[in-house]
Every structure is written in structure tokens, then in C-alpha cells.
């Protein structure tokens, strides 16, 4: 729960003169007016109503930057001490607003238009045509189903990560060595991993894993031939890079459990198995849920490995939504349709994450 009122109380006497207040207001509203003026002139220019000769939209960008600086300065000038506090979050809020909110609104406009960057027609509003096209696009629905499979794989990753974290938390030697080497996969670039594992170690003729598979009796190993095996290979590569992430979060949770609790369980006669299920695991539930939720968020962005190893093949069996839209743009320059697919995906994600977070909230509430 957020406490009401400031954690840090500051008592100040404010005497801000009217002149200072007026100056601040003029600064803020004046720079806003300049920004709107420049933006208006530029849009008239780009619609060929006026001919001023702007090449890019940079002037509007600079005017907006000036306005942001003036707004921040105006806070302190007009509101004094209160303004200084607002100044702590204002730059970040303006930055995120400019970089997310504005492009998202812009994206909505693009999503409902027919816009192919390689065609000379430019952007044309086409209503719900893109939605209809999406509805009848089997490859898009296929990539959404794949995302469900990829997300379900997180449970296996979670079990492995939990097991390793428990072992790392045990009384062992060379703990630092193990911790560092278990962490390393997370540091590697997915593109490098695509080559290191996907293209060379899984290479059918000379790859060490293919060799190992032949030794173990798989006559003609092929890791990206059939749809199921290809999907499993992608899952394994992604798991390889991201298991350390969950492992570290769970390890931090395990180390925060007081040893008295486990000792008390032992004194009460619980074996290690029962102690784990009745003491450790319930205590780890909040951390586990946080780790799994964050992992789901990262999983939903999965693309780099797929783009570089299989580019969605065979037959779209490994496609994630992101890699599908990436190819939609790369191969067809279809900005309008691609954006609609992305927006629809965002809506699905927001709904799913809201439900998940509500459920998680219910599970995390202690039951005693």
C-alpha cells in the first residue's frame, strides 16, 4: 500500500511574486504556442496548402523540445518548492509520453490505413479492411498459437530454474564459479546465440550436438526439419538464454528465507521433501509468481532467435508474432497491415496480463 502524504516532509515558506509567476506562465504558454504554430505551419506545408519549403519535421521536434524545457523550468518558477519536486519525475514522464503515447496514437492511425512503403500511392485510409484481412490470415493465427506454446514452455523453464537455484543455495564449494557460469548465457546476444547454437552446434553434419545425437542412436538428426522438433529447438535455445534470469530471482528469494524456519521444520520432524513442499515452496510463491510474470513479458517479445535461425520455417511452425510482423514488413513493406497486427497483439497482451496479474494478486495473498 502506498502511504498517504510525503515520506519526506519539507516545510518551506513560499513567497513567489506575481511578476515571477506571470513570467513562468508566459514561458510555458508562449513556448506551447510556438510549438503549435510550427506544427501547424508544417502540416499545412506537407499538405501542399502553403509552400514554405520544409524538408523534414525537425523544426516541430525542436519546438517540442523547447516547450518541454520551458515546461520544466516553468514548474520551478511558478510553484517554487513544489515545482522542484515535480521536476524529479517530469523529465521521465515527458520522455515516455513523447516516445510512447504519441507514437501509439500515430500507430492507431496507421493501423486503419492501406500503406505500403514501396508503393507510390502513400497512405490511404481503408477502414476495417485490415481487420478483415487479419481475420482471414491463417499465418497470423498460427503465430498466435505458437506464442501460446512458447509461453507454456515457461513452466518447464521454471522447474529447471528452481531446481538449479535450490542446488546453488545448498552447502557447496565453488559457489561463485557456478553462479558466474550459470549467469553467462543471459549476457549473450540472441543473434550470437542463433549462430553459436542454432547454426553451428545444431548443424546437421558437423555440429557437436548432431554428433552427440548420432552417438546416442538418432540416425539422421535434423533439428529444424519437422514442425514439432523445430519448435522445440527454438524453445530450448530461448530457455538456455533465459533460465539464468529466473534462477537468479528464485535464488534471491531462497536466500531471503530465514534458516530458523527450515530448522523449525526439521525439529518438528519434517523430512527434506516435506520441508520443501510445506515450508520453502509456499514461502517462495510470491517470488516465483513475479519471476514467471516477468519471464512471460520477455517471452512475448521473442523474435531475434527465430528471425535468425529459422525465419519462421518450416511452414510457419516456429513463427512468433513479432517475427511474423517483421517479415511482413521486410518482405512486403506493408506498414499499415503490420501495424494493425501489432496493435491487435498489444490488446491481447494487455488483456491477458491484466487477468494474470489479478490472479497472481489473489494467489500471492498469504493464507494464514
Amino acid at each position, binding site marked *: 500500500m*502506498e502511504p498517504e502524504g510525503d515520506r519526506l516532509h519539507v516545510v518551506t515558506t513560499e513567497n513567489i511574486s506575481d511578476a515571477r509567476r506571470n513570467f513562468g506562465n508566459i514561458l510555458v504558454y508562449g513556448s506551447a504556442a510556438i510549438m503549435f504554430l510550427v506544427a501547424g505551419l508544417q502540416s499545412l506545408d506537407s499538405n501542399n496548402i502553403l509552400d514554405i519549403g520544409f524538408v*523534414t519535421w525537425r523544426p516541430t521536434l525542436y519546438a517540442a523540445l523547447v516547450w518541454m524545457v520551458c515546461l520544466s523550468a516553468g514548474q520551478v518558477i511558478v510553484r517554487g518548492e513544489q515545482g522542484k519536486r515535480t521536476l524529479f519525475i517530469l523529465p*521521465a514522464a515527458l520522455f*515516455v509520453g513523447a516516445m510512447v503515447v504519441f507514437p501509439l496514437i500515430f500507430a492507431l492511425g496507421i493501423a486503419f490505413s492501406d500503406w505500403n512503403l514501396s508503393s507510390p500511392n502513400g497512405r490511404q485510409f481503408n477502414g476495417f479492411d485490415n481487420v478483415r484481412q487479419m481475420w482471414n490470415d491463417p499465418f497470423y493465427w498460427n503465430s498466435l498459437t505458437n506464442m501460446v506454446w512458447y509461453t507454456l514452455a515457461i513452466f518447464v523453464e521454471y522447474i529447471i530454474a528452481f531446481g538449479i537455484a535450490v*542446488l546453488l543455495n545448498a552447502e557447496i564449494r565453488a559457489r561463485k564459479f557456478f553462479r*558466474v557460469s550459470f549467469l553467462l548465457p543471459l*549476457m549473450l546476444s540472441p543473434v550470437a546465440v*542463433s549462430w553459436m547454437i542454432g547454426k553451428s552446434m545444431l548443424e546437421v553434419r*558437423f555440429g557437436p550436438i548432431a554428433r552427440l545425437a548420432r552417438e546416442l542412436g538418432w540416425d539422421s538428426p535434423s533439428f529444424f526439419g519437422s514442425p514439432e522438433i523445430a519448435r522445440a529447438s527454438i524453445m530450448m535455445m530461448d530457455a538456455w538464454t533465459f533460465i539464468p534470469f529466473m534462477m537468479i530471482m528464485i535464488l534471491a528469494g531462497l536466500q531471503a528465507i530465514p534458516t530458523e524456519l527450515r530448522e523449525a521444520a526439521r525439529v518438528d520432524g519434517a523430512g527434506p521433501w516435506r520441508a520443501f513442499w510445506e515450508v520453502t515452496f509456499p514461502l517462495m510463491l510470491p517470488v516465483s509468481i513475479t519471476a514467471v510474470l516477468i519471464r512471460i513479458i520477455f517471452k512475448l517479445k521473442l523474435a531475434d532467435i527465430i528471425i535468425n535461425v529459422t525465419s519462421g520455417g518450416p511452414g510457419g511452425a516456429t513463427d512468433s508474432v513479432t517475427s511474423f510482423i517483421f517479415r511482413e514488413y521486410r518482405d512486403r513493406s506493408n*506498414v499499415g497491415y503490420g501495424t494493425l497486427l501489432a496493435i491487435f497483439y498489444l490488446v491481447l497482451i494487455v488483456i491477458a496480463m491484466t487477468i494474470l496479474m489479478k490472479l497472481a494478486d489473489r494467489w500471492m495473498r498469504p493464507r494464514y
Partner: protein
Amino acid sequence: MSAQIFHDHETDFGHKARWITSRVAIYGILILWAIICLFPIYWTITTTFKAAPDVMQGNMIPWVDFTPKWLGLRSLGLSPETIFNESTVRDEFMKRLTNSTVTAVGASVIAVMLGSTAAYGLSRFSYRFGPMKNSDISFFFLSQLILPPVVLALPFLVLYKSLALLDTRIGLILLYALTTLPIVIWIMRDQFGSIPTELEEAAFVDGLSIWGAYFTIILPIALPGMVASFILSLVLTWNEYFFAALLTSTNAKTLPVMLASQTGSQGISWWSMAALSFAAILPLIVIGILLERYIIKGMAAGAVK
């Protein structure tokens, strides 16, 4: 008095045997997992020094199975005999390396600056912007994490085109700063929350303003958290491929994009691909080994309340 009076009971020996088996099992699993984690890295490094026959015969151990050659580094113009010569490949590679470094460091600096001030404000004061209170503002920042990159990619492509920011480092830096900002705020909020407010109160008594107290008292204390979030952003932005592939072409292309464009033409020159991959992962391996403490601290923030 030579006869032993006290004997270990048989069940005690049983304990010993069980203890040994459990030790063997624990270390066995740990070593197996360490091999799984480290082998791909080892494979990449050794392949850099292998000639084609060595690759095909599956030789693994240098100086035993095969003699290391400078093939991989020579193909990048970085081997001892080529390092002083002119090399277009090396120039290209160095350009990509600089791009990656500049974008990763620039974006992380911006994200840490903006993110830590915002996190400090959120941890100390209660704001009210219309209907939005502190928890809503925090949620607004953190919710950027679930935004998939595809949603932003195409609008940014169009926007950057009209702003002439396409294929520039600054455009990439801004976008990367945006993607890592929620992580920085997540870590730093945790960090500032653990610093008692009495410190600032003492600073006010000594006549410092709120920003003065923030810069001279609080930031030095919060340095570990800042280092942790800086390194995490560095890792994420150095490895980023998706935006870089869409928004850059010739000038601002980063190392992962260069690597990916080489993967497409899957020739037989494994050593040169291995050398490139090795170059792309080396800085992060070094960071991972040296600064592992901070990375773990950063990722564990927020996990334990």
C-alpha cells in the same frame, strides 16, 4: 584400555553413505549444467581458430586434436600479421563496434539519469496529476515493459523517416533508453526505498536544497543500484537486434545486425562467423565475470520484498 567402548551405530554409517550420494548427485547436476552453459561459448572460441578440416572432423581440444590457426581473426583483419595492414573488413567491424558501444552507453546513461530521478521522486513524494497518484504513475512507467517492440517499430520507422532520424545513432539511443527505462525505475525505486529519509532531513538542516541533497547525499549512497541498472541496460541494449535491424541501414548499423547479415550467407567460413560472434559476446562475458555481483543484485531487486 585398548578396547573401544563406544561404537558408531549402524544407522550412523547409513547417514554417511547417504550424505556422499547426495553430494555426488548435487555436484554432478551442477557440473552438468555448467557444461551446458559454458560449452557453446567454448565451442565458439575454439572454432575461431579452426580450419575447415578441423571443423568437419569435430576436433574439440586445441593443441591435442588440432593446431590453432589465426584464420578467424585474420578474416576480421585482427590477427598478429594483419593487424598493421589496411583492412576494409576491420574498418567495417570497428565501425559497427563503435556504433554498438556508443548506442549502448548513450542509451544506458540517459535511462539511468531519467530513471533514477523519477524513482527518487516516486519514493519520496506523493504526486497528483489529475486522477493519477503515485501508484498510477509507477504503473505508467513500469507498464512500458509489457509493450512489445513490434508495436512501436513501424510507427517509429515512419516517424523517424519524417524526422530524418532513420539510420542515426541518436534515434537508436532514444529508443533504447525508452526500452530500458522501466527496468531502471524498477531497480532504483527499490534502492531509494531502502535509504532512510532522515539523511535528507539532516541535509536540509544543514541548508541544502532538495536537489542538493539528492546529488550530494543520496546518489552516492544509491550508487550500487545505479551501477546495477546501468549494467543491465548495457547488456540489453548491446544485444538488441530488432529495432536496429529495422531502423538502421548503413551508418548506424550495430554489431548484432552485422552478425545477422553474415549469418544469412551461410558459407563454409565458420571461423569468420565464430570470430564475429566471439567479438560480439566477449565484452559481455568480461562484464559478466567481473561485475556478476551487480547484475545479480539488479535482477534480484523487487524479487524480495
